[in-house]
């Protein structure tokens, strides 16, 4: 079993893995070691934080708002913006395709490049929030 939050992350991973550009190269915290350039383009999906609000007085069921970071990484010697944009557009279209599970809501987009190495790697990170309910005494059970 996994925490409810990880199950929600897995739902994001499944949607990204269904895309064509990066394909199955969607990595989570289960693979924290570096990604070779040969495996780009790729996504790295990470749970960021999870504020919890109590739903009912004297009950353990709470509403969780989970922030999830989806970083798409590409290698492009020329045309970085186009390559990065294509990856992000496809990824976001898949993650937010209706019906949207767990009230996925886009909250931020960040753009990054590096001048290290070949200066040919860039990334785009979109952050989303997901809402779900879970009992604090049964954190592996995703209620909604």
């Amino acid at each position: 079993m996994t925490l409810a939050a990880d199950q929600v992350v897995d739902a994001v991973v499944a949607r990204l893995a269904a895309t064509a550009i990066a394909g199955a190269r969607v990595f989570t915290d289960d693979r924290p070691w570096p990604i070779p350039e040969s495996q780009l383009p790729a996504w790295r999906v990470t749970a960021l934080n999870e504020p919890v609000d109590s739903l009912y007085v004297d009950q353990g069921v709470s509403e969780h708002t989970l922030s999830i970071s989806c970083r798409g990484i590409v290698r492009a010697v020329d045309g970085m913006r186009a390559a990065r944009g294509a990856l992000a557009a496809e990824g976001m279209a898949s993650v937010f395709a209706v019906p949207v599970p767990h009230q996925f809501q886009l909250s931020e987009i960040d753009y990054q490049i590096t001048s290290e190495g070949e200066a040919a790697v860039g990334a785009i990170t979109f952050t989303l929030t997901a809402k779900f309910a879970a009992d604090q005494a049964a954190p592996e059970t995703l209620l909604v």
Partner: protein
Amino acid sequence: MSFADVEARANASVFKTLTNATATYTPAVGDPVSFGVVFDPAGAIIDDFGTVAQQPRFAMQPAAFTALEEGMVLAIRSVDYQVRSVVPLDEGGWQRVTLARA
């Protein structure tokens, strides 16, 4: 003999000894230009994205090809590379050229 002369002789000797590859630039018009370089094709780093990024590069004496500049495509050991940066070092006695596989 001035210090600059000694330095130039030392650099010339080093590059004569260590040169391990030939870089060839083929212009749109005119003949190809070839020059010797000290080539390191296998360098790599782990960048800010957690990616193992290749870092092919070479060192050369600037006088070997004074027209070298960012964006040029060079053939080295049958592989095309784009010049990403040219960094003068040692008071211009030699320079480090960072590449990207084209």
